């Protein structure tokens, strides 16, 4: 079942976010957090270092609070697999400003590269489609990622989930602050909210 990709994850995430504008981004623990930081540290990034399974749902709460902004949950296959139920929860409320992008290397990269479900026939896009997502898709090349970036910049009728298949390797870590209070206050200040 393994449909492997030769796409480099850092190049893919850089192409995805090159013209992100004022999109708010939440990254799932492990490599997606490092990938997001590697594109440049920003006030409108929130990096998760734990809370596995929570990235897309944190994106949901944020999208509901900020309906005029686009929100992107950038996560990995393992992280999203732990949050499968959340795809149903998001599908029920159908936020028009939330996208989930799964950087899918089909492995648990942070813990020794054990194979995950997505290389064994489990298709996150099919799950999202069955949960009523407005659009889903899988991409495997930089040209496709660039088209995807243009697509997610456009308005949507509901939540969207896309999978970017990447090669299973761990590039050098690019480490953001692990101080969640600092990142929280910085993010909120960006949106105009005073720190407590």
């Amino acid at each position, binding site marked *: 079942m393994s449909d492997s990709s030769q796409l480099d994850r850092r190049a893919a995430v850089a192409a995805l976010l090159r013209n992100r504008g004022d999109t*708010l981004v*939440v990254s799932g623990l492990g490599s997606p957090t490092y990938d997001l930081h590697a594109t440049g540290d920003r006030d409108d990034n*929130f990096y*998760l270092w*734990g*809370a*596995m*399974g*929570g*990235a897309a*749902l*944190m*994106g*949901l*709460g*944020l*999208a*509901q*609070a*900020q309906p005029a902004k686009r929100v992107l949950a950038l996560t990995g296959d393992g992280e999203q697999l732990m*949050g499968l*139920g*959340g795809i*149903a*929860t998001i599908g*029920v*409320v159908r936020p028009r400003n939330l996208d989930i992008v799964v950087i899918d290397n089909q492995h648990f990269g942070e813990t020794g590269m054990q194979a995950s479900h997505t290389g064994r026939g489990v298709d996150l896009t099919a799950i999202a489609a069955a949960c009523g997502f407005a659009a889903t898709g899988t991409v495997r090349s930089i040209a496709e990622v660039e088209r995807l970036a243009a697509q997610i910049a456009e308005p949507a009728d509901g939540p969207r989930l896309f999978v970017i298949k990447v090669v299973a390797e761990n590039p050098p870590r690019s480490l953001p602050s692990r101080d*969640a*209070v600092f*990142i*929280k206050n910085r*993010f*909120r200040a960006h*949106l*105009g*909210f005073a720190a*407590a």
Partner: protein
Amino acid sequence: MHSPQPNLETRTSDDWPSELYRVLKAADVRQMSYVPDAGHSQLIRLFSADRDVTTNVLTSEEEGVAIAVGAWLGGQRSVLLMQSSGVGNCINMLSLSAIGRFPLLMLVTMRGEWAEFNPWQVPMSRATQPSLEAIGLKVMRAETPEDLIETVEAAAALAYESDQQIAVLIGQRLIGKKKW
């Protein structure tokens, strides 16, 4: 001490979910998420009918913890409703609220502690308060409708004004015996 107090008291006791709704609206709660419990059913109906509040039905309770964190990041207050069995599902996700000092208000209806007919509710009932405290939440309890309203008012202030993570446990004695 005679009329009209007894009448008022009866009304408050019977209609504590409406009072809870009023308290949470006064605290400017804009998002509510839940896994249902019979004890929360009226409060769920009131919020679901409120166009100023976004309501999320969850597949598992920890989803609501992550939603509450995202809501706060985006400038909104949220409340999470569940029964005590759902607390066990939340534990790892609560590390996010704790480490980020994100305001959190959970209202937990207790099962397995008072006239419970289902023994399967008992183990998690016993574990509810210790496991919440172990992950760093402040636990408050209410056993009467009057106490519940006051407790939730105080808990909301502690959560949203002082960045605390609070679970209010609603005693099963208050909710009453489940009818079959």
